[in-house]
Protein backbone atom coordinates (compact mmCIF):
# COMPACT_ATOMS: atom_id res chain seq x y z
CA UNK A 1 0.00 0.00 0.00
CA UNK A 2 1.07 3.53 -0.73
CA UNK A 3 2.41 5.26 2.34
CA UNK A 4 -0.06 8.10 1.78
CA UNK A 5 -2.93 5.67 1.95
CA UNK A 6 -1.48 4.16 5.06
CA UNK A 7 -1.08 7.58 6.54
CA UNK A 8 -4.75 8.29 6.10
CA UNK A 9 -5.69 5.18 7.96
CA UNK A 10 -4.23 6.74 11.05
CA UNK A 11 -6.12 10.00 10.77
CA UNK A 12 -9.04 9.00 13.03
CA UNK A 13 -6.66 7.96 15.79
CA UNK A 14 -4.53 11.05 15.44
CA UNK A 15 -7.67 13.11 15.71
CA UNK A 16 -8.79 11.26 18.81
CA UNK A 17 -5.48 11.80 20.53
CA UNK A 18 -5.30 15.44 19.48
CA UNK A 19 -8.81 16.05 20.74
CA UNK A 20 -7.92 14.66 24.13
CA UNK A 21 -4.67 16.58 24.19
CA UNK A 22 -6.21 19.90 23.18
CA UNK A 23 -9.77 20.16 24.25
CA UNK A 24 -10.81 22.21 21.26
CA UNK A 25 -11.96 20.65 18.05
CA UNK A 26 -10.52 23.19 15.63
CA UNK A 27 -7.16 23.49 17.32
CA UNK A 28 -6.93 19.72 17.58
CA UNK A 29 -7.65 19.32 13.87
CA UNK A 30 -5.08 22.03 13.15
CA UNK A 31 -2.54 19.92 14.96
CA UNK A 32 -3.52 16.86 12.95
CA UNK A 33 -3.33 18.83 9.72
CA UNK A 34 0.13 20.16 10.53
CA UNK A 35 1.22 16.66 11.47
CA UNK A 36 -0.06 15.19 8.20
CA UNK A 37 1.54 17.91 6.12
CA UNK A 38 4.85 17.41 7.78
CA UNK A 39 4.59 13.64 7.45
CA UNK A 40 3.64 13.86 3.77
CA UNK A 41 6.62 16.12 3.17
CA UNK A 42 8.91 13.62 4.78
CA UNK A 43 7.63 10.29 3.61
CA UNK A 44 11.07 9.71 2.17
CA UNK A 45 12.44 9.73 5.70
CA UNK A 46 10.09 7.07 6.85
CA UNK A 47 11.74 3.69 6.93
CA UNK A 48 9.55 1.02 5.50
CA UNK A 49 8.89 -1.75 7.95
CA UNK A 50 9.02 0.47 11.01
CA UNK A 51 5.95 1.45 12.92
CA UNK A 52 4.16 4.17 11.00
CA UNK A 53 1.89 4.95 13.88
CA UNK A 54 4.78 5.59 16.26
CA UNK A 55 6.39 7.78 13.62
CA UNK A 56 3.23 9.84 13.24
CA UNK A 57 2.89 10.30 16.96
CA UNK A 58 6.50 11.41 17.10
CA UNK A 59 5.82 14.03 14.45
CA UNK A 60 2.67 15.15 16.20
CA UNK A 61 4.55 15.48 19.45
CA UNK A 62 7.23 17.60 17.79
CA UNK A 63 4.69 19.83 16.06
CA UNK A 64 2.82 20.24 19.31
CA UNK A 65 5.97 21.00 21.27
CA UNK A 66 7.08 23.55 18.67
CA UNK A 67 3.74 25.30 18.77
CA UNK A 68 3.89 25.36 22.51
CA UNK A 69 7.37 26.87 22.45
CA UNK A 70 6.46 29.50 19.87
CA UNK A 71 3.23 30.53 21.45
CA UNK A 72 4.73 30.67 24.93
CA UNK A 73 3.57 28.37 27.60
CA UNK A 74 0.58 30.42 28.50
CA UNK A 75 -0.91 30.67 25.04
CA UNK A 76 -1.28 26.93 24.55
CA UNK A 77 -3.91 26.97 27.20
CA UNK A 78 -7.17 26.76 25.32
CA UNK A 79 -10.64 27.39 26.53
CA UNK A 80 -12.34 24.41 28.04
CA UNK A 81 -15.71 25.78 27.01
CA UNK A 82 -15.68 25.19 23.34
CA UNK A 83 -18.85 26.56 21.83
CA UNK A 84 -18.04 25.13 18.45
CA UNK A 85 -18.78 21.66 19.75
CA UNK A 86 -22.42 20.86 20.07
CA UNK A 87 -23.26 19.35 23.41
CA UNK A 88 -24.97 16.45 21.70
CA UNK A 89 -21.67 15.34 20.22
CA UNK A 90 -20.30 14.56 23.57
CA UNK A 91 -23.48 13.30 25.12
CA UNK A 92 -23.19 9.66 25.98
CA UNK A 93 -26.09 7.60 24.81
CA UNK A 94 -28.18 5.92 27.48
CA UNK A 95 -26.12 7.23 30.32
CA UNK A 96 -26.92 10.83 31.02
CA UNK A 97 -25.20 10.90 34.37
CA UNK A 98 -21.91 10.55 32.57
CA UNK A 99 -21.75 13.97 31.00
CA UNK A 100 -20.77 15.78 34.17
CA UNK A 101 -18.02 13.33 34.85
CA UNK A 102 -16.89 13.63 31.26
CA UNK A 103 -16.62 17.38 31.43
CA UNK A 104 -14.59 17.03 34.56
CA UNK A 105 -12.26 14.81 32.63
CA UNK A 106 -11.64 17.53 30.02
CA UNK A 107 -11.12 20.04 32.75
CA UNK A 108 -8.76 17.85 34.73
CA UNK A 109 -6.75 16.85 31.65
CA UNK A 110 -6.19 20.45 30.68
CA UNK A 111 -4.78 21.07 34.11
CA UNK A 112 -2.08 18.47 33.74
CA UNK A 113 1.33 19.66 32.63
CA UNK A 114 1.65 18.97 28.91
CA UNK A 115 4.37 16.37 29.28
CA UNK A 116 2.30 14.39 31.76
CA UNK A 117 -0.85 14.72 29.68
CA UNK A 118 0.92 13.31 26.64
CA UNK A 119 2.19 10.25 28.48
CA UNK A 120 -1.05 9.55 30.31
CA UNK A 121 -3.01 9.72 27.03
CA UNK A 122 -0.55 7.78 24.90
CA UNK A 123 -0.61 4.96 27.44
CA UNK A 124 -4.22 5.14 28.58
CA UNK A 125 -6.03 6.14 25.40
CA UNK A 126 -3.69 5.07 22.60
CA UNK A 127 -2.61 2.00 24.54
CA UNK A 128 0.97 2.37 23.42
CA UNK A 129 3.65 0.39 25.19
CA UNK A 130 6.00 2.29 27.48
CA UNK A 131 8.81 1.63 25.02
CA UNK A 132 6.83 3.10 22.11
CA UNK A 133 5.94 6.15 24.16
CA UNK A 134 9.60 6.63 25.04
CA UNK A 135 10.43 6.42 21.37
CA UNK A 136 7.68 8.76 20.24
CA UNK A 137 8.49 11.42 22.82
CA UNK A 138 12.22 10.85 22.63
CA UNK A 139 12.62 10.44 26.37
CA UNK A 140 14.04 7.61 28.50
CA UNK A 141 11.61 4.92 29.55
CA UNK A 142 12.18 5.83 33.19
CA UNK A 143 10.90 9.30 32.43
CA UNK A 144 7.83 7.79 30.80
CA UNK A 145 7.16 5.86 33.99
CA UNK A 146 7.61 8.81 36.30
CA UNK A 147 5.46 11.11 34.15
CA UNK A 148 2.80 8.44 33.93
CA UNK A 149 2.83 7.94 37.65
CA UNK A 150 2.71 11.64 38.47
CA UNK A 151 0.18 12.37 35.75
CA UNK A 152 -2.25 9.67 36.77
CA UNK A 153 -2.01 10.56 40.42
CA UNK A 154 -2.59 14.21 39.65
CA UNK A 155 -5.53 13.43 37.39
CA UNK A 156 -7.00 11.26 40.08
CA UNK A 157 -6.73 14.05 42.62
CA UNK A 158 -8.22 16.55 40.18
CA UNK A 159 -11.14 14.30 39.36
CA UNK A 160 -11.80 13.62 43.01
CA UNK A 161 -11.59 17.32 43.77
CA UNK A 162 -13.90 18.54 41.06
CA UNK A 163 -16.67 16.19 41.98
CA UNK A 164 -16.33 14.82 45.46
CA UNK A 165 -19.74 13.18 45.46
CA UNK A 166 -19.12 10.96 42.47
CA UNK A 167 -16.12 8.91 43.31
CA UNK A 168 -14.50 7.08 40.47
CA UNK A 169 -15.94 3.70 39.87
CA UNK A 170 -14.43 1.08 42.11
CA UNK A 171 -12.68 -1.68 40.30
CA UNK A 172 -10.05 -4.12 41.24
Amino acid at each position, binding site marked *: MDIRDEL*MEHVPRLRRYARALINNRDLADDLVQDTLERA*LGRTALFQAGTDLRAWLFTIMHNVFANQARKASVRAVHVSVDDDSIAESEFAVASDQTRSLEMRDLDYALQRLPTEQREVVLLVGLEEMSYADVALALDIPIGTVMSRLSRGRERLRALMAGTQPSAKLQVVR
Partner: protein
Amino acid sequence: MNEQLTPISEEELHAYVDGTLSDERRAQVERALEQNPELAARVSDYFSLNNLFHNRYDRVLSEPVPKRLQPPAPKRRWLDAANWPQFAGMAAALVLGVGIGVGTQMGKDVPGTTASPLGMGSDHSDTRPVSADASDGLARQAAIAHVVYMPAVQVPDSVGTDQDRDFVQWLSNKLGTDVHAPLLNKSGFELSGGRILPGADGPVAQFMYRGPGDERVTLCISHRKVNSNTTAFKLYQDGPVNVFYWVDGDYGYAVSGGIDRKVLLQLSHDVYAQLTAAKGG
Protein backbone atom coordinates in the same frame (compact mmCIF):
# COMPACT_ATOMS: atom_id res chain seq x y z
CA MET B 1 1.79 -19.67 50.85
CA ASN B 2 2.81 -16.73 52.98
CA GLU B 3 6.02 -16.00 51.21
CA GLN B 4 7.47 -12.59 51.83
CA LEU B 5 6.67 -10.36 48.89
CA THR B 6 9.04 -7.86 47.49
CA PRO B 7 7.46 -4.47 48.01
CA ILE B 8 5.52 -3.23 45.02
CA SER B 9 6.97 -0.17 43.39
CA GLU B 10 5.05 2.72 41.98
CA GLU B 11 6.14 1.68 38.49
CA GLU B 12 4.87 -1.83 38.97
CA LEU B 13 1.50 -0.55 40.07
CA HIS B 14 1.14 1.22 36.75
CA ALA B 15 2.58 -1.68 34.83
CA TYR B 16 -0.13 -3.76 36.47
CA VAL B 17 -2.81 -1.37 35.27
CA ASP B 18 -1.35 -1.39 31.77
CA GLY B 19 -1.04 -5.16 31.73
CA THR B 20 2.69 -5.41 31.24
CA LEU B 21 3.65 -7.40 34.33
CA SER B 22 4.67 -11.02 34.21
CA ASP B 23 1.99 -13.48 35.29
CA GLU B 24 3.83 -14.24 38.46
CA ARG B 25 4.33 -10.66 39.48
CA ARG B 26 0.78 -9.80 38.52
CA ALA B 27 -0.51 -12.44 40.89
CA GLN B 28 1.68 -11.02 43.63
CA VAL B 29 0.41 -7.51 43.01
CA GLU B 30 -3.14 -8.80 43.11
CA ARG B 31 -2.53 -10.42 46.45
CA ALA B 32 -0.98 -7.25 47.79
CA LEU B 33 -3.98 -5.24 46.58
CA GLU B 34 -6.34 -7.55 48.40
CA GLN B 35 -4.55 -6.75 51.63
CA ASN B 36 -4.32 -3.05 51.05
CA PRO B 37 -7.65 -1.37 50.29
CA GLU B 38 -6.04 2.01 49.88
CA LEU B 39 -3.70 0.72 47.20
CA ALA B 40 -6.58 -1.16 45.60
CA ALA B 41 -8.62 2.03 45.43
CA ARG B 42 -5.81 3.82 43.68
CA VAL B 43 -5.33 1.09 41.14
CA SER B 44 -9.05 0.96 40.58
CA ASP B 45 -9.07 4.69 39.87
CA TYR B 46 -6.27 4.27 37.36
CA PHE B 47 -8.30 1.64 35.55
CA SER B 48 -11.30 3.93 35.62
CA LEU B 49 -9.30 6.76 34.14
CA ASN B 50 -8.40 4.66 31.13
CA ASN B 51 -12.05 3.72 30.71
CA LEU B 52 -13.04 7.35 30.98
CA PHE B 53 -10.61 8.31 28.23
CA HIS B 54 -12.18 5.82 25.89
CA ASN B 55 -15.73 6.73 26.84
CA ARG B 56 -14.97 10.35 26.24
CA TYR B 57 -12.80 10.38 23.16
CA ASP B 58 -13.43 7.23 21.16
CA ARG B 59 -16.37 8.91 19.47
CA VAL B 60 -13.86 11.02 17.55
CA LEU B 61 -12.89 7.84 15.69
CA SER B 62 -16.27 7.64 14.02
CA GLU B 63 -16.61 11.30 13.17
CA PRO B 64 -16.40 12.06 9.47
CA VAL B 65 -12.89 13.24 8.69
CA PRO B 66 -13.01 16.91 7.71
CA LYS B 67 -12.04 17.73 4.17
CA ARG B 68 -8.88 19.52 5.12
CA LEU B 69 -7.53 16.34 6.70
CA GLN B 70 -8.09 14.29 3.58
CA PRO B 71 -5.28 13.67 1.14
CA PRO B 72 -4.57 16.64 -1.12
CA ALA B 73 -4.02 14.85 -4.42
CA PRO B 74 -6.24 11.92 -5.32
CA LYS B 75 -3.60 9.45 -6.22
CA ARG B 76 -5.92 6.51 -6.05
CA ARG B 77 -9.61 6.02 -5.76
CA TRP B 78 -10.42 8.23 -2.86
CA LEU B 79 -14.10 8.56 -3.57
CA ASP B 80 -15.02 6.04 -0.94
CA ALA B 81 -12.84 7.56 1.67
CA ALA B 82 -15.05 10.53 2.46
CA ASN B 83 -15.89 8.83 5.67
CA TRP B 84 -12.82 6.82 6.40
CA PRO B 85 -13.85 5.00 9.59
CA GLN B 86 -16.93 3.58 7.90
CA PHE B 87 -14.90 2.58 4.94
CA ALA B 88 -12.35 0.90 7.13
CA GLY B 89 -15.11 -0.91 8.99
CA MET B 90 -16.54 -2.14 5.74
CA ALA B 91 -13.20 -3.39 4.59
CA ALA B 92 -12.73 -5.23 7.85
CA ALA B 93 -16.16 -6.80 7.52
CA LEU B 94 -15.39 -8.00 4.04
CA VAL B 95 -12.23 -9.64 5.25
CA LEU B 96 -14.24 -11.32 7.96
CA GLY B 97 -16.83 -12.36 5.44
CA VAL B 98 -14.25 -14.20 3.46
CA GLY B 99 -12.76 -15.73 6.55
CA ILE B 100 -15.81 -17.21 8.19
CA GLY B 101 -18.57 -16.93 5.69
CA VAL B 102 -20.61 -14.33 7.44
CA GLY B 103 -23.52 -13.59 5.19
CA THR B 104 -26.71 -11.87 6.08
CA GLN B 105 -28.42 -14.18 3.62
CA MET B 106 -27.36 -17.30 5.36
CA GLY B 107 -29.88 -17.29 8.15
CA LYS B 108 -32.73 -16.26 5.92
CA ASP B 109 -32.19 -18.65 3.09
CA VAL B 110 -31.83 -21.82 5.06
CA PRO B 111 -34.64 -21.77 7.59
CA GLY B 112 -34.70 -24.53 10.12
CA THR B 113 -31.45 -26.03 9.08
CA THR B 114 -28.57 -26.28 11.41
CA ALA B 115 -26.81 -23.59 9.45
CA SER B 116 -23.67 -23.08 11.37
CA PRO B 117 -22.09 -19.70 11.76
CA LEU B 118 -18.88 -21.52 11.18
CA GLY B 119 -19.99 -22.71 7.78
CA MET B 120 -17.25 -22.13 5.30
CA GLY B 121 -17.42 -21.19 1.71
CA SER B 122 -20.21 -18.70 1.65
CA ASP B 123 -19.97 -16.58 -1.42
CA HIS B 124 -22.14 -13.81 -0.16
CA SER B 125 -20.36 -10.57 -0.05
CA ASP B 126 -23.12 -8.35 1.22
CA THR B 127 -21.82 -8.31 4.72
CA ARG B 128 -22.17 -5.39 7.00
CA PRO B 129 -20.61 -4.75 10.34
CA VAL B 130 -23.94 -3.68 11.76
CA SER B 131 -27.31 -4.86 10.63
CA ALA B 132 -30.65 -3.59 11.69
CA ASP B 133 -32.54 -6.62 12.91
CA ALA B 134 -33.73 -7.29 16.42
CA SER B 135 -30.69 -9.22 17.54
CA ASP B 136 -28.80 -5.94 17.32
CA GLY B 137 -30.46 -5.05 20.57
CA LEU B 138 -28.59 -7.83 22.30
CA ALA B 139 -25.31 -6.84 20.71
CA ARG B 140 -25.73 -3.27 21.79
CA GLN B 141 -26.76 -4.27 25.26
CA ALA B 142 -23.84 -6.65 25.46
CA ALA B 143 -21.43 -3.90 24.46
CA ILE B 144 -22.82 -1.58 27.09
CA ALA B 145 -22.83 -4.28 29.73
CA HIS B 146 -19.25 -5.07 28.85
CA VAL B 147 -18.15 -1.50 29.37
CA VAL B 148 -20.24 -0.96 32.47
CA TYR B 149 -19.53 -4.14 34.36
CA MET B 150 -16.20 -5.34 33.16
CA PRO B 151 -14.04 -3.05 35.28
CA ALA B 152 -15.86 -4.20 38.38
CA VAL B 153 -15.16 -7.87 38.04
CA GLN B 154 -14.36 -9.40 41.35
CA VAL B 155 -12.49 -12.61 41.48
CA PRO B 156 -13.12 -14.13 44.87
CA ASP B 157 -10.03 -15.75 46.28
CA SER B 158 -11.77 -18.92 47.01
CA VAL B 159 -13.45 -19.60 43.74
CA GLY B 160 -13.07 -23.27 43.19
CA THR B 161 -14.79 -25.72 40.99
CA ASP B 162 -17.58 -26.26 43.50
CA GLN B 163 -18.47 -22.62 43.69
CA ASP B 164 -18.32 -22.42 39.93
CA ARG B 165 -20.88 -25.13 39.72
CA ASP B 166 -23.14 -23.51 42.29
CA PHE B 167 -22.95 -20.23 40.48
CA VAL B 168 -23.76 -21.76 37.14
CA GLN B 169 -26.66 -23.61 38.74
CA TRP B 170 -27.94 -20.37 40.16
CA LEU B 171 -27.65 -18.68 36.79
CA SER B 172 -29.49 -21.56 35.17
CA ASN B 173 -32.37 -21.22 37.59
CA LYS B 174 -32.60 -17.52 36.95
CA LEU B 175 -32.51 -17.92 33.23
CA GLY B 176 -34.95 -20.81 33.27
CA THR B 177 -32.72 -23.07 31.31
CA ASP B 178 -29.56 -25.03 31.52
CA VAL B 179 -26.67 -22.67 31.26
CA HIS B 180 -23.19 -23.79 30.96
CA ALA B 181 -20.31 -21.41 30.89
CA PRO B 182 -17.92 -22.30 28.08
CA LEU B 183 -14.34 -22.78 29.13
CA LEU B 184 -11.88 -20.62 27.28
CA ASN B 185 -8.78 -21.63 29.25
CA LYS B 186 -7.35 -23.11 26.10
CA SER B 187 -7.10 -19.60 24.72
CA GLY B 188 -5.80 -18.31 28.01
CA PHE B 189 -9.07 -16.79 29.18
CA GLU B 190 -10.33 -17.74 32.61
CA LEU B 191 -13.86 -17.46 33.84
CA SER B 192 -13.78 -14.72 36.41
CA GLY B 193 -17.38 -14.05 37.26
CA GLY B 194 -20.91 -13.68 36.09
CA ARG B 195 -24.16 -11.98 36.77
CA ILE B 196 -27.74 -11.73 35.67
CA LEU B 197 -28.77 -8.57 33.91
CA PRO B 198 -32.27 -7.45 33.10
CA GLY B 199 -32.82 -7.40 29.36
CA ALA B 200 -35.62 -6.31 27.07
CA ASP B 201 -36.18 -9.94 26.18
CA GLY B 202 -35.91 -11.29 29.72
CA PRO B 203 -32.88 -11.96 31.85
CA VAL B 204 -29.46 -12.05 30.30
CA ALA B 205 -26.63 -14.12 31.76
CA GLN B 206 -23.28 -12.41 31.57
CA PHE B 207 -20.07 -14.37 32.00
CA MET B 208 -16.81 -12.59 32.43
CA TYR B 209 -13.43 -13.85 31.34
CA ARG B 210 -9.99 -12.57 31.95
CA GLY B 211 -7.13 -13.11 29.53
CA PRO B 212 -3.41 -13.57 30.09
CA GLY B 213 -2.73 -9.85 29.69
CA ASP B 214 -5.72 -8.93 31.84
CA GLU B 215 -7.89 -8.46 28.77
CA ARG B 216 -11.56 -8.63 29.60
CA VAL B 217 -14.10 -10.48 27.56
CA THR B 218 -17.75 -11.02 28.34
CA LEU B 219 -20.24 -13.53 27.03
CA CYS B 220 -23.92 -12.64 27.19
CA ILE B 221 -26.59 -15.28 26.75
CA SER B 222 -30.20 -14.22 26.49
CA HIS B 223 -33.21 -16.46 26.42
CA ARG B 224 -35.34 -14.97 23.70
CA LYS B 225 -39.11 -15.04 23.71
CA VAL B 226 -39.21 -15.32 19.97
CA ASN B 227 -37.65 -18.32 18.37
CA SER B 228 -35.61 -17.35 15.36
CA ASN B 229 -33.61 -19.15 12.82
CA THR B 230 -29.98 -19.62 13.39
CA THR B 231 -28.03 -16.68 12.12
CA ALA B 232 -24.48 -16.18 11.10
CA PHE B 233 -21.95 -14.44 13.26
CA LYS B 234 -22.37 -10.74 13.07
CA LEU B 235 -20.09 -8.02 14.17
CA TYR B 236 -21.23 -5.01 16.10
CA GLN B 237 -18.85 -2.29 17.07
CA ASP B 238 -19.36 0.32 19.71
CA GLY B 239 -16.31 2.47 20.24
CA PRO B 240 -13.46 0.25 21.30
CA VAL B 241 -15.71 -2.69 22.01
CA ASN B 242 -16.22 -5.34 19.38
CA VAL B 243 -19.14 -7.70 19.72
CA PHE B 244 -19.66 -10.90 17.80
CA TYR B 245 -23.22 -12.05 18.16
CA TRP B 246 -25.49 -14.69 16.78
CA VAL B 247 -28.88 -16.24 17.39
CA ASP B 248 -29.44 -19.93 17.76
CA GLY B 249 -33.08 -20.86 18.22
CA ASP B 250 -34.33 -19.46 21.51
CA TYR B 251 -31.00 -18.05 22.47
CA GLY B 252 -29.02 -15.01 21.59
CA TYR B 253 -25.30 -14.95 22.21
CA ALA B 254 -22.89 -12.05 22.25
CA VAL B 255 -19.16 -12.12 22.88
CA SER B 256 -17.76 -8.68 23.66
CA GLY B 257 -14.32 -7.37 24.26
CA GLY B 258 -12.06 -4.44 23.61
CA ILE B 259 -9.52 -6.76 22.06
CA ASP B 260 -8.33 -7.60 18.59
CA ARG B 261 -11.16 -8.81 16.40
CA LYS B 262 -9.31 -11.87 15.27
CA VAL B 263 -8.77 -12.99 18.85
CA LEU B 264 -12.35 -12.23 19.72
CA LEU B 265 -13.58 -14.13 16.71
CA GLN B 266 -11.51 -17.13 17.71
CA LEU B 267 -13.06 -17.00 21.17
CA SER B 268 -16.51 -16.76 19.61
CA HIS B 269 -15.79 -19.87 17.60
CA ASP B 270 -14.78 -21.62 20.81
CA VAL B 271 -17.93 -20.53 22.57
CA TYR B 272 -20.11 -21.58 19.69
CA ALA B 273 -18.48 -24.97 19.37
CA GLN B 274 -18.80 -25.70 23.06
CA LEU B 275 -22.39 -24.59 23.32
CA THR B 276 -23.39 -26.59 20.29
CA ALA B 277 -21.62 -29.67 21.59
CA ALA B 278 -23.36 -29.28 24.95
CA LYS B 279 -26.78 -29.15 23.35
CA GLY B 280 -26.08 -32.11 21.13
CA GLY B 281 -24.94 -34.32 23.98
